[in-house]
């Protein structure tokens, strides 16, 4: 479907993103609950979600804060979890890079998994869209998800304040992360990165200041990158062999 106006592009984005409310809603709720359990009040939990607007980084920071981790390590680890948005930003640049600076600044704040995934597919399949239409679509994908995330956080923080500590909700956080990881593992190289990181992370807990997380994360990243290179070369060799035979 070709867009006639930027307005229709915006609403198309809103409609396409609606199913993602089912994901960001529960996670926002969970963040609110866990923030309340950690001792944050409702305005603090809300400000956290509003200012940072990055689920996995928020969960990471919340966990590490409770483990008495030095602040520098909390920040580095949480930002490392969020490094993928830098990659999203890089891959959206060819489509949105010509928009005015203030629009790009607003768009930057709104780069999350959902808006990126929807937009990049849309921009690839409809190369005729103008830059304003693309921007409108991109903002539309956040029209529900961003307010949904904030409202869910507030609701969760209100609910969480009522839940007694004895419920042991701490364990829900690793479960939430585990739920996110499964669908991210799309290639053999992803699996290599994941399992190397796990293998290194267990002995690395002996390192002081929760540095083990960063060490294990880097080990996993390097393993994933190497695995990708190796698999590409193996595939290239296969093709070369087949071409020689035919």
């Amino acid at each position, binding site marked *: 479907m070709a867009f006639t106006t930027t307005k229709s592009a915006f609403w198309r984005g809103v409609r396409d993103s609606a199913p993602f409310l089912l994901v960001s809603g529960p996670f926002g709720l969970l963040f609110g609950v866990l923030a309340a359990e950690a001792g944050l009040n409702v305005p603090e939990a809300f400000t956290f979600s509003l200012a*940072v607007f990055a689920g*996995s980084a928020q969960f990471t920071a919340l966990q590490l*804060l409770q483990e008495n981790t030095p602040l520098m390590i909390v*920040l580095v680890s949480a930002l490392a*979890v969020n490094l*993928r948005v830098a990659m999203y930003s890089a891959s*959206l640049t060819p489509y949105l890079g010509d928009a005015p600076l203030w629009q790009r600044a607003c768009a930057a704040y709104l780069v999350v998994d959902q808006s990126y995934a929807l937009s990049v597919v849309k921009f690839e399949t409809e190369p005729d869209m103008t830059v304003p239409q693309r921007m409108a679509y991109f903002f539309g994908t956040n029209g529900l998800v961003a307010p949904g995330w904030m409202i869910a956080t507030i609701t969760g923080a209100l609910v969480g304040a009522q839940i007694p500590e*004895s419920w042991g909700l701490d364990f829900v*956080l690793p479960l939430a992360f*585990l739920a996110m990881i499964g669908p991210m593992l799309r290639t053999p190289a992803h699996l290599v990165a994941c399992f190397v990181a796990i293998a290194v992370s267990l002995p690395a807990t002996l390192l002081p200041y929760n540095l083990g997380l960063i060490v294990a994360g880097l080990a996993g990243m390097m393993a994933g990158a190497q695995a990708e290179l190796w698999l590409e070369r193996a595939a290239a060799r296969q093709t070369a062999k087949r071409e020689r035979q035919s």
Partner: protein
Amino acid sequence: MNGFGQFELWVVIIGLALGSFGLRFAFIGFMGGRPMPAWLMRHLRYTAVAIIPALVAPLVVWPSTTGGEPSLPHLAVAALTFAVGYLTRNVLWALLSGVSGFLLLFYLLS
């Protein structure tokens, strides 16, 4: 608060807000259409799938709810959550199984 104060909380909120925005703005804002070095992109692709498991693994092996004692039921619920996410490719089903498993743990162990 559990192990941290107001000061720590606000340093983290403000630091993360600036840092996350910086990461997101870095390329859309500054790089323009210039290509990224391939080796950097190759490593960035694996940040989330490496760092999140590295964060989770110790929490699953030594759960804080048991006081850090390894626990087979916790391990089983974690494995279930991961397996459902991996096999269905659906975060929501995985989260649902995780929460159901957690409720089961809650009833069994309390």
